[in-house]
């Protein structure tokens, strides 16, 4: 790949670039959104693949868990000082821990698909419709503070940490938010989870008023 020179970057037609970006966003928004049930109707072969995939991910999770345990044990008993102990432990948490969370997410998602494939929604489990309903609640409606407009975004004080200068941005087009001060945010479900310390299920139920 050719690296663009400074001159080439300056020559870019930024107006066209912004237009192309908007066009791409518009195209992504226009893509059809399918429920799990519809997806399984389109791709019925998945019904046989899902259980195998669940086993694969569980094996992967166990492997990572085992590695994390070994690393944490090594850090706990062999770290040279208090700072090393803190640093290596937290480094493992933010890297391996994140990987583990991602895998857990895959497993939960596949298990939900498996339940749908079997034609049942386990007791207490959220339905696709409930999740979609929760995702449609505008974030700005959940904020009890003045927001000012900045381009396509709304800006206000971050509800997750104390600050004097607003760094919390809400993007109504995608119904998402991000605080550039504490680097937290996401969609409306993530927002409620961070704000109230709820689980995913609790956040969805809170949003749909159940």
């Amino acid at each position, binding site marked *: 790949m050719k690296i663009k020179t400074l001159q080439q970057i300056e020559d870019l037609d930024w107006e066209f670039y912004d237009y192309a970006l908007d066009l791409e966003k518009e195209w992504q928004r226009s893509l059809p959104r399918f429920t799990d049930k519809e997806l399984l109707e389109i791709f019925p072969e998945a019904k046989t693949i899902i259980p195998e995939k669940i086993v694969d991910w569980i094996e992967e999770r166990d492997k990572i868990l085992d590695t994390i345990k070994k690393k944490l044990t*090594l*850090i706990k008993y062999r770290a040279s000082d208090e700072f090393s102990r803190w640093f290596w432990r937290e*480094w493992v948490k933010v890297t*391996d821990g994140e990987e583990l969370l991602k895998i857990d997410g895959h497993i939960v998602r596949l298990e939900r698909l498996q339940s749908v494939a079997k034609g049942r929604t386990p007791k207490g489990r959220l339905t696709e419709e409930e999740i979609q309903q929760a995702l449609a609640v505008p974030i700005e409606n959940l904020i009890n503070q003045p927001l000012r407009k900045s381009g396509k975004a709304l800006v206000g004080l971050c509800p997750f940490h104390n600050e004097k200068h607003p760094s919390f941005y809400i993007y109504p087009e995608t119904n998402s938010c991000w605080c550039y001060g504490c680097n937290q945010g996401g969609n409306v479900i993530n927002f409620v989870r961070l704000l109230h310390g709820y689980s995913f299920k609790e956040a969805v139920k809170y949003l749909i008023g159940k």
Partner: protein
Amino acid sequence: MLPKEAIEEFKKIYKQKFKKDLSDIEALRRANNLLNLYKTIYGPPTLGEIWRNSKYQKNKDLQRIEIK
């Protein structure tokens, strides 16, 4: 994003090392920046790397612990 306990611990260590109190926000920023830097550049640390940075790294007699 680091949990509150990790930030408190970071503040305590920082105070011991540099004799300076950090505010919650500053400690959060510094600790996150430090870990994000390593995360971005190196990814997860390997067992070997952790071992090489341990207090027994120079003691050959103790290098019997099985590591990957």
